[in-house]
């Protein structure tokens, strides 16, 4: 197999969060799952932060440090120093073959170890997190500066979607030859549950047969919940029985609730994972109205639960959905969203078919095994 690492090697992963200690968002899941999958045939060490002693879980050795800092940038520099210190403790005997860094947090460590075989993965950019806008405050400049510098010195770079690859190429002048697209993976079993949809709907005061639309995500401009609320006004005219559940917290909540005063929308706020599974498996349709989405993990989660999806034609969503095959892509504006939602709800059996095909796609493309395989191909290119 060309470009694939066949023999077992020693891999170091640097990430500021992990599943078993400090966990912030989706990055913990992605990096931990990748590490555990790689650990099936390689020796994997995971350098991260946390208040717990070092441990080995599913063949991955976790090494923790306790950083300090008055602001996020200082904090991450302190963390990087701790990681490098830990790294050298385990770089004896057999040296590490590949060093894999995630996002900007550990770029300082990347700087100190830049002579080695380094790989940097972008999960998003500061520009994207800021709603596709430049910022003029110092943190913005510091963070995007680190993102640029990491892309400059890393031997290879990966991005979770072609859109993000273009973004880092434009923003940080990362050359095309240096950057590979390696999408996120998923464990589909975690998101499909055998549940009585009617019973869950009733728990939210919704008729068991009423079509339920689910939005999950932070209530911020980037995720476009306002577009969905506007679209619901049109949807309700065609489907007076349709209901919307908005799960997630964020600065826009008050504003959205104001706008949705006369709509059948229920703002349930932050939901724990178990409740998310219940809602995801009980709903009839998942809507992802984001304005910017480097990857869009919710898409894979919805597909894992065999749900049909109406999503904005942006970023990773745009790359991964085939319209009328496994979902529906629409423009991120209320009219187009409403059309998409109505189209799905007009034909429930079509909706089921889209969801089933989405699940098949997940099993074909987005399981961690093939994704980790792709990642090792990138590793191999560092030395090629």
């Amino acid at each position, binding site marked *: 197999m060309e470009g694939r690492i066949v023999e077992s090697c020693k891999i170091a992963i640097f990430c500021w969060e992990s599943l078993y200690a400090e966990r912030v968002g989706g990055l913990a899941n992605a990096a931990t799952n990748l590490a555990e999958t790689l650990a099936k045939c390689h020796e994997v060490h995971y350098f991260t932060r946390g208040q717990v002693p070092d441990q080995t879980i599913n063949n991955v050795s976790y090494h923790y440090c306790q950083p300090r800092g008055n602001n996020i940038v200082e904090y991450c520099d302190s963390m990087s120093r701790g990681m490098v210190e830990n790294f050298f403790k385990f770089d004896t005997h057999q040296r590490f073959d590949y060093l894999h860094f995630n996002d900007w947090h550990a770029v300082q460590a990347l700087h100190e170890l830049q002579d080695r075989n380094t790989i940097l993965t972008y999960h998003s950019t500061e520009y994207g997190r800021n709603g596709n806008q430049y910022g003029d405050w110092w943190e913005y400049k510091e963070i995007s500066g680190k993102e640029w510098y990491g892309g400059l010195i890393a031997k290879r770079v990966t991005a979770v979607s072609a859109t993000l690859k273009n973004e880092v190429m434009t923003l940080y002048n990362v050359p095309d030859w240096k950057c590979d697209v390696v999408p996120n993976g998923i464990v589909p079993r*975690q998101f499909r*549950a*055998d*549940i009585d949809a009617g019973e869950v709907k009733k728990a939210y005061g919704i008729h068991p047969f009423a079509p339920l639309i689910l939005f999950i995500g932070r209530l911020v401009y980037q995720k476009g919940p306002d577009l969905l609320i506007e679209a619901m006004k049109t949807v309700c005219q065609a489907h007076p029985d349709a209901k919307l559940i908005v799960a997630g917290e964020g600065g826009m909540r008050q504003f959205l609730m104001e706008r949705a005063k006369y709509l059948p929308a229920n703002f349930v706020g932050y939901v724990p994972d178990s409740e998310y599974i219940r809602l995801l498996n009980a709903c009839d349709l998942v809507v992802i109205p984001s304005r910017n989405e480097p990857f869009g993990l919710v898409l894979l989660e919805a597909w894992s639960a065999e749900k049909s999806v109406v999503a904005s034609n942006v970023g990773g969503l745009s790359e991964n959905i085939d319209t009328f095959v496994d979902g529906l892509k629409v423009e991120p504006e209320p009219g187009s969203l409403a059309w998409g939602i109505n189209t799905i709800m007009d034909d429930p059996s079509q909706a089921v078919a889209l969801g089933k095909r989405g699940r098949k796609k997940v099993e074909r493309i987005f399981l961690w095994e093939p994704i980790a395989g792709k990642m090792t191909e990138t590793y191999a290119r560092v030395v090629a």
Partner: protein
Amino acid sequence: MPALSIGFEVHQPYRLNRNFTPDPKVKKRHIQNLYFDEVNRDLLLRIAEKCYIPATTMILDLLDDGFSCAFSLSGTVIEQLEKWSPNTLCLFEQVAQHRNAEILAQTYYHSIASCFHDKTEFTEQVRMHSALMHDLFHADPTVFENTEFTFNNDIAGCVRDMGFCGVFTEGVERVLDWRSPNYLYTCRDIPVILRNTRLSDDIAFRFTNRSWDMYPLTADTWARWVAESPGEVVNVFLDYESFGEHMWPETGIFDFLRHLPGELSARDVPVILPSKVITEYVPVDSITVPDTISWADIEKDTSAWMGNDRQLTAFHALEAARVFAKDKQTWRYLQTSDHFYYMASKYGSCGEVHSYFCYLSGEEAFRTYMRIIADFEERSLRYMKNRRAARALRTLSPENAFYFHSPSGFIGYTAYSLDQFCELVSIVPADSLRYHQDRGDFACWINDILGDPLIAESIRECTERQDIKNLVGEWRDELWSHVK
């Protein structure tokens, strides 16, 4: 002009008793009366009257006039005919001994044993079937046809090693790509006859479809399609029950069958037997089938039996039940593919086909199956060497399974065995684990249902997911080492 080979699948399962409840008073030798539904007898008699008797009588006449065709009868349908309709079995005996007919091999229990990791059970059932064909019909099948045409490279190799001359399977487009099913192929050095899906389904499914633009289909039209087909041999295989049972006599299906041989010979289409296909033609190419195919639905894979999580749960329970199966016969009856078919949750036209064939809903079928397999294992415990370990590892009925909850309710994950519990502990959301751990649910379940107070005490001490995972994982591995 191609030749035509035509074959029929004759099979009835022992459907499970929908109203099954465990009854320790029932003796072991009567256990099958408790597990299997009384409806089996009525259904068999109905199908015999509507299909087997009229269709076979007609086919016997056609065979006398020079028509030829193949039959594949499962062991379970033969048992049922012997018990409840011996006259019908006599008709099949006449067919089997007719010089223009051929009997094909399959698994005795029409089972999904070929999907098991270990193929010994599969080969044993094939041998049982061949022995039955020999004893009953004096026939020694040379061509093999697996349950619902399930097929892959491993099965091909297995069938070759058993000494068959050829194997029948589905002409799946994704395997053939640009190639036509109307030729002989090989797979792992065994000749493979491929079913022509379109011409087969024209009879089996579209014949009664009034919205089909070719409705009504007549024998001369269909014979013309065969005659005009490219290639060397068109292979058609049908559920025998299509004649008179799935499609009633009023649809004209018997008239179609009656006139078919005449229309075929009017167009000089030779009708030959599958074994003849293998000796007459030279394989044009070889195929590789890494992923299992079958003739089911539009997916043409195993999704009709192992497509959803319920079916997978039941399948793993069945495979794990091997060590409990002191009573092999009952275990084998539970392997019949139909039990799994009833648990499907399909949509669209395939969903309609599923619901036509299913005598109960998917959910109900699954619960019935799990109840029966749990009872079967429970009864086997007393004959097992390490009873305590076996008790902890057994499959559980829906009443004893562990249902993962969150404070707001059931979250859709159910553990029907310790094995599944170990798997789910790493999957369920952390807040659900915490909820159960705070209430001591895991400890209670392990103590009351799996019967191990020591592990139950230890699990109370666990605070992290990882601790629970390690504890039950190591315990499980140890138990299996005692039982295997």
